């Protein structure tokens, strides 16, 4: 079954009387990587949480383009790896099955660990893994859920540049074909991974016109198009904060 796109219409969110955003409209194209950039505190994470069903908007709605309910079709990857410190990497990957009371598919979890390059660390506890390895386990856990829509909130921001570049390649490869929304602070990451990039800024926050990036992710960092769009993106972000 093809993944649905997601339509965000007239979305408003208020906290303690202050408006975070009003009348927000955005479409996440089915099967593509959409990237959302913007300054801290502008409401990017709130938007992601509303789409994930973790928070309710003051107004507006989020729905799938195939008009079926979104519940149960979204996987969520947060800024922290959120691994359980008492459980092995393998059991962390299969957490969803344990929490739903369904049978754990150890073979599939092992295949996923192999695909993120951690086949030999299946029994390791999170404390025995590096930051990059932990985030790869979190990626495998996200993939184990096998949901058509994946929401990611700056999942790679705490990693060093080399580790981040590697895991970006991995994410682009393993999440290809799903409808993905990625929040990031990093224009380079946006340009390498995104099919369409949108900037959220202002108070109340507004969305700029999305930039469409040609070619398939992951793009190489020194790709002319990537560098060109990165420049454009930086100009937009700088213009907003000026």
């Amino acid at each position, binding site marked *: 079954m093809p993944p649905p796109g997601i339509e965000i219409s007239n979305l408003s969110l208020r906290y303690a009387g202050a408006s975070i955003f009003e009348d927000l409209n955005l479409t996440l194209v089915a099967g593509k990587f959409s990237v959302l950039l913007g300054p801290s505190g502008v409401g990017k994470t709130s938007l992601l*949480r509303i789409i994930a069903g973790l928070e309710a908007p003051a107004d507006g709605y989020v729905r799938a383009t195939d008009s079926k309910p979104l519940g149960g079709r979204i996987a969520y990857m947060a800024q922290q790896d959120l691994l359980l*410190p*008492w459980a092995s990497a393998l059991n962390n990957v299969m957490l969803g099955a344990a929490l*739903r009371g369904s049978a754990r598919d150890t073979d599939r979890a092992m295949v996923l660990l192999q695909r993120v390059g951690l086949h030999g660390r299946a029994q390791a506890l999170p404390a025995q893994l590096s930051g990059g390895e932990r985030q790869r386990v979190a990626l495998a856990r996200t993939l184990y*859920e096998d949901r058509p829509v994946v929401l990611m909130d700056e999942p790679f921001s705490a990693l060093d540049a080399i580790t981040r570049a590697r895991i970006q390649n991995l994410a682009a490869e393993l999440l290809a074909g799903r409808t993905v929304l990625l929040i990031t602070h990093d224009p380079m990451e946006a340009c390498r991974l995104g099919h369409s990039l949108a900037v959220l800024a202002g108070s109340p926050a507004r969305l700029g016109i999305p930039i469409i990036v040609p070619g398939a992710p992951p793009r190489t960092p020194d790709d002319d198009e990537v560098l060109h769009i990165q420049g454009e993106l930086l100009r937009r972000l700088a213009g907003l904060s000026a």
Partner: protein
Amino acid sequence: MIRPFVTLGVFIAVWWALTAFTAIPAFMLPSPQAVGAALWAQRDYLAANTLVTLTEIILGLVAGTLLGGVAALGIAASPVLQRWLMPILVLSQAIPVFALAPLLVLWLGFGIGSKVAMAVLVIFFPVTANFLDGLRRTEPGWLDLARTMNASPILVLLHLRLPAALPAFASGLRVATAIAPIGAILGEWVGASSGLGYVMINANARIETDLMFAALAILAAMAITLYVAMDHALRRLLRWAPEA
């Protein structure tokens, strides 16, 4: 590792000096040698009574921990249980155990039952309160993740909130281990036919202060050993928890 023994050595030396160079009568402060002699001479009597007190403490710890654990889980799982159990929890702490001791002896007799009940009463609150606190402080990110995974609330409690609360539960258990002897000894003072508390009350009445000190020394050694053993076991079991 050497420090506790140095402290103990200095303590005994000061004690010895007090008995050797001052006029404090032996019935008020017996010398370390006299206590040592009493310890040896009455070893069978002391050993039998130590076993009684130790049994009371361990049974109290097991029962109190089980009760506290179940109560905390019940309160965390169900708002209805929370409304019914919270007042009992607070009450168990509001009434001084000392005031209840004579009643418990009256109801449960001079045997081991009333002492175990005392120990349970003393440790129920710290175990329940600490565990409950841990169950309520689950990392919000984990709960969000569980929601996006369509998790069942009872399995979230079992697989996520419960293990996450184990370090807090362990803190409660440490406190419980440290104070469980208080409950048992208190029960023995109020009315008993055996146990270290009973030995102390009797020795006190007969002005056998050296025997009283001997019982006290055994009690202290037992309480410290219990605590160290519990602490060690908890550290081993909760190796994943950074602060355990």
